[in-house]
């Protein structure tokens, strides 16, 4: 019996060993590593699909899709609401500030009114206790600005002025409109500081009509060329520039209280107005004067006896070569 039990145990052991050979208890780490490398899952990802039953996974995916739809719909609604609110605000702002009808009253003028205002811009009135009237009009000043642009173009074309970056038209537009709006804004600020009773529109109108004198000076200076000196221009500058400046200064003085304030604003307007005319002349007309001076001072013109052209050229070349040689020798010695 004892021997049989041992044998049974032995048989059991052998079966156990057979089972172990099929499923060994020794763990092969290489195989486990290979298995781990093949998997793409991160440490934080868990694959519930394998562990959950199939019905629950379908329900969960449906819920996910529903949530996604909800999120997308909410996003679209918010976007459309923001777009509608923004476009309404923009339309409201445009209707208030971009409405061209705001400026319509300032262009309602008759030809005789524009003519008389242009003439009176060159006739200063002595300031009294009564305020001098300034029309709130934009047609006349705008036409004066456009005229000045056209005259500047004529001046630049006549003087063969070249603009490196930009165009002649762009330069003329930029210069004229920048001065009109910039100088008017500066004068408006000074009027605010010095308590002068003038609105921005009145200042724009006054400064615009004041440029009529500049147009006359530019036109006469372009069609009448004088070489060597600028006396003719300075005379025109003093007469027409001075008259139109005096007109504006008288208007401002009649509307300002206090000597210091009057001097301050009057001086600023005079400086801006007269210096701008000087700039327009010397920036775009100087080329003509320089060319005329060069042609007048050429040695061939002042030579008494006429020489043939090749002989003159030969002498000039030889002279330049000698001068260059002398300068090189001087540099070498130093």
């Amino acid at each position, binding site marked *: 019996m004892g021997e049989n039990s041992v044998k049974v145990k032995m048989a059991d052991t052998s079966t156990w060993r057979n089972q172990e050979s099929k499923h060994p208890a020794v763990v092969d780490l290489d195989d486990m590593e290979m298995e781990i490398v093949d998997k793409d899952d991160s440490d934080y990802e868990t694959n519930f699909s394998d562990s959950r039953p199939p019905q629950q996974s379908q329900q969960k995916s449906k819920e996910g899709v529903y949530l996604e739809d909800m999120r997308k719909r909410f996003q679209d609604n918010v976007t459309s609401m923001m777009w509608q609110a923004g476009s309404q605000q923009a339309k409201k702002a445009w209707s208030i500030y971009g409405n061209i009808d705001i400026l319509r009253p300032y262009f309602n003028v*008759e*030809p005789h009114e*524009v003519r008389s205002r242009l003439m009176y811009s060159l006739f200063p009135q002595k300031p009294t206790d009564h305020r001098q009237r300034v029309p709130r009009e934009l047609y006349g000043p705008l036409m004066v600005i456009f005229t000045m642009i*056209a005259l500047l173009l004529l001046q630049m*074309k006549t003087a063969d002025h070249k603009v490196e970056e930009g165009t002649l038209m762009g330069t003329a537009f930029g210069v004229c409109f920048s001065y009109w709006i910039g100088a008017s804004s500066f004068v408006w600020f000074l009027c605010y500081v010095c308590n002068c009773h003038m609105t921005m529109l009145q200042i724009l109108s006054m400064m615009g009509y004041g440029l009529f004198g500049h147009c006359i000076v530019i036109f006469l200076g372009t069609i009448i060329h004088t070489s060597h000196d600028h006396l003719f221009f300075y005379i025109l500058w003093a007469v027409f520039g001075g008259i139109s400046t005096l007109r504006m200064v008288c208007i401002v003085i009649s509307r300002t209280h206090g000597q210091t304030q009057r001097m301050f604003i009057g001086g600023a307007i005079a400086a801006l107005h007269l210096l701008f005319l000087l700039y327009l002349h010397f920036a775009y007309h100087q080329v003509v004067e320089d060319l005329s001076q060069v042609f007048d001072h050429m040695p061939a013109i002042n030579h008494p006896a006429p020489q043939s052209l090749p002989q003159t050229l030969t002498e000039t070349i030889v002279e330049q070569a000698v001068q260059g040689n002398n300068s090189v020798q001087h540099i070498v010695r130093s």
Partner: protein
Amino acid sequence: MLILICKYNNVCQQCDSDGSDPSAKWISFRSDVLNTSKTLAVLNPLKQADHTIMQDTDLAGPLVFCLAFGGSLMLAGKLQFGYIYGIGVVGCLAVYALLNLMSMTGVSAGITVSVLGYCLLPMVILSFSSILLSLQGIIGIVLVCVAVVWCSLSASKLFVSALEMDQQQLLVAYPCALVYGVFALLTVF
């Protein structure tokens, strides 16, 4: 001149039965792209213009005149199509804004471009004359002044008749004169 050509198949039963090839047929031949009434109104600035003349805003005439202007300048040795386009656009915008501010009824951009384009005809004549003679002398100055006044008078007449601004023709003519003056600068220099 604009010629429309149309080619179509399936002309008639006889052709189909004969088995002949489908033939091309000239559908229409238009030679009146230029509005003659507007052109005549421009050529005669002193004649009263009909206020219904501006109801038709065609742009073919202005395009033809602009191309003719650029072509004549090209024959004179100046390639300035870009300048014509730029000055034209800026001028049209300025006149459009000004007329909308000055008139009670307002004006459309098409009418502005159409009127300014048709009234460029005298400037085209001036540019053709610049091929034959120099415009930088006394004769040139006189011709330029005549052309600019002619263009601006015609344009202001058409605008005033369309917008009922009879008392303000001079105020409309002056900005038109400035625009055509810039075109004259292109022709002269």
